[in-house]
């Protein structure tokens, strides 16, 4: 019998829409949408199992082989640089990584720029390319607060609609890069389940191309 493929999905809206696609292309597992305490959902017939993980942990599960496949945002991949294959751009969960702050925050270039962010590695490499001296302040949430209470000059964060920024009198000053969800695969699992993973990717690719 074919080996089972385990998939780590990010908790939340993105994960749910990704699961719908998996379901449509023949990797359904109905019990996953039921409310309950179960953590792992398995469909022996379709040879697939799923579990929900915190979005920022998906890549860790995949790199360590706890899941063969996972779905993670490019933001997480750039920040963590996991040693995995990135086989597909799923084109979902589109947003961008941006520098935001008060209107004139980037005007004074004669001093260290204080940057608050959940993504210190992304911020560091972005400003390293500009050779700008910065100080990173790592936060874990409510990043927009930082420039308002003068904790930092700017923030580096994910921007979807820009609504939260606007409400707080902040604006996008620069775009770092575009973000979307990616399909990642453990390097060892790829060697032992090549055929099954290729098949799954092929179907996903077709389905995504349809839009």
């Amino acid at each position, binding site marked *: 019998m074919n080996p089972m493929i385990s998939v780590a999905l990010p908790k939340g809206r993105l994960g749910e829409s990704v699961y719908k696609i998996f379901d449509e292309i023949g990797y359904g597992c109905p019990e996953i949408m039921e409310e309950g305490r179960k953590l792992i959902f398995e469909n022996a017939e379709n040879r697939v199992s799923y579990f929900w993980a915190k979005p920022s942990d998906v890549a*860790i599960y995949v*790199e*360590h*082989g706890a899941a063969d496949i996972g779905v993670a945002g490019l933001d997480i991949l750039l920040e963590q640089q996991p*040693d*995995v*294959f*990135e*086989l*597909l*751009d799923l084109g979902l969960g589109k947003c961008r990584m941006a520098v935001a702050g008060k209107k004139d925050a980037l005007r004074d270039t004669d001093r260290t720029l204080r940057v608050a962010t959940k993504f210190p590695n992304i911020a560091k490499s972005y400003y390293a390319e500009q050779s700008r001296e910065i100080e990173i302040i790592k936060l874990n949430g409510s990043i927009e607060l930082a420039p308002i209470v003068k904790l930092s000059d700017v923030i580096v964060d994910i921007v979807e609609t820009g609504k939260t920024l606007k409400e707080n009198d902040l604006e996008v000053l620069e775009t770092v890069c575009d973000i979307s969800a990616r399909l990642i695969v*453990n*390097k*060892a*699992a790829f*060697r*032992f389940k*090549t055929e099954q993973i290729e098949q799954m990717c092929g179907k996903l690719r077709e389905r995504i191309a349809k839009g």
Partner: protein
Amino acid sequence: MNTVTSDLRREERAIFELRELYEQYGYKKYKMSKFEEYDLYLENKSFLPSSQVITFTDLNGKLLALKPDVTLSIAKYIPTCPAEPEKVYYNENVYRTPRGSHEYKEIMQVGLEYLGSIDLYAQCEVLSLALRSLQKLSESCVMVLSDMGFISGLLEYCALPLALEERIVACVEHKNAHEIKRLCAENGVDEELCQSIAALTGLYGELDDTIRRARALVKNDKMASSLDRLTEIASVLSAETDGSLRLDFSVINDLSYYNGLIFQGFIDGVPSAVLSGGRYDKLMERLGKNTSAMGFAVYVDQLERLGFEERRYDVDVLLLYDEGADVSKLTAAVKMLTNNGQRVRVQSALSEKLRFRQLLKLGERGLEILESND
């Protein structure tokens, strides 16, 4: 029962078996000191899997390091122009920070190096030893092979700016075709070149078929001769591989050290490569040696990931004795049991944690069986 091998942990057994394998092929054990001058690692930083090294000052004020790697030391010590090939193997502890960890770890590493002029036979020997090493670790294993000449040939042909080249190579390693296309479009790289580079991510699989598909991408002599080399090797090794040897052009090692063949080995149940190696003539050149070299390392510590083989019993026999027991009789009994290949533990009282196959007691009338768990 052979107590020597059956009681060893998986890693320990692997070290014994690999050692036996390499000795069979006439490789000599290379025992080295734990320390090395720090300069060696400073000059060859990107050859190391992680850049952190434990350093200390020796009694003369010289900066030394605890070895993070063995290959560099072996490569350094051999003569500049060796008259005959050096065939060596080692098992040594190295000290480095594994990926994703923020602490130094002592890692047991077994490896093999062939230093000298390398012909087709030598390449096949090292490759097949790597493959057989993997097979010793697990029945379910895969070795993926690539040739650096192919990708470096393609990159030479493309002549991309260095910064872009580095990013594209990283994408190939991650089989990330969509990012390659995005980068090429962003930097105005020719569409056909972009397609060729992106095609590398899909070039993997069974040897002959993958070589055939790779032919379509050949742009220059370097790429062609790389495929010729792989074809020769495939024809020699295909007999003994039973499908566990595959090609994969997304396997890449540092271009400034490696040229020619490179390979990685995986075993089912371990999430990252347990074996890694290749041909590193360029390192030899950097160290001022006029010779070729090829070798591999086996990350024996990764075998822990396979989990423990549950041992049912701690000892075969737990032998109890009373205070007044005749010690010479007791000694004789222990000798008799151990001579039969049993593991015997002698104590005066029963202990709760110890799991035993048989519980014996030395009484007035000799050995009595109190309990048997078979």
